[in-house]
């Protein structure tokens, strides 16, 4: 199961498993973003290259249009590992803890 909801401060909350079968659901939300967004991954347990591609594509688009881009918070250690192997720590604001 994969869900995207909105938190009380406007952040996006991703829950469950973002695998290749979730491309439509995830793309619809991320492709509609503009400016700057916090994305809370506290309840995200799994991500594959499809999800990484959506995050990178969104970050490129937001930054290219002068926006602040994505801040990923509450990233669990397995996903943080994948982000580092993918070099995402160099191009995205990634935090293993909450906002602030």
């Amino acid at each position, binding site marked *: 199961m994969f869900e995207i909801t909105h938190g009380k401060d406007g952040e996006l909350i991703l829950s469950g*498993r973002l695998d*290749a*079968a979730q491309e439509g659901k995830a793309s619809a939300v991320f492709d509609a973003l503009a400016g700057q967004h916090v994305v809370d991954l506290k309840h995200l347990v799994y991500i594959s*290259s499809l999800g990484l591609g959506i995050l990178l594509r969104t970050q*490129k688009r937001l930054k*290219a249009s002068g926006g602040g881009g994505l801040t990923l918070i509450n990233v669990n250690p397995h996903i943080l590992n994948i982000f580092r*192997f*993918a*070099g995402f720590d160099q191009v995205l604001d990634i935090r293993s803890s909450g906002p602030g």
Partner: protein
Amino acid sequence: MDRAFPRNIASLEAIFAFAEEFFAREAIGPEPRFAVQFALEEMFTNMVKYQAHSPHEILIRLECADDRIELRLTDYDVEPFDPTRVEPPAIDVPLEKRRVGGLGVHLTRMVMDSVEYEYVDRQSTITLTKKLG
């Protein structure tokens, strides 16, 4: 454990359920679970995308041997696709030069301990291992 899956992204749900059965049976911890699921998805979706013409199901085998998990995907009547020879994407570049895509095979090689490829009689076999402990 062996099971064959239809060549479709929608098979992922059943593939992950199959992996869960295996993890529970072998009492596998969280870190190898993540790596094995990741490798399974990336290798399977590559076969779906790049070998779409084959009418055959894709065979997945999961085994625990000594101190490692062995994962094998077998794809029948296909063109060769050797994941061990895929160039890693340029990740040490500024955001505007980062290419979207091409990460799956690279990350699979990073999270697994070995990846081997064999192509015989139009049959592709990818064997990956993940050490335990």
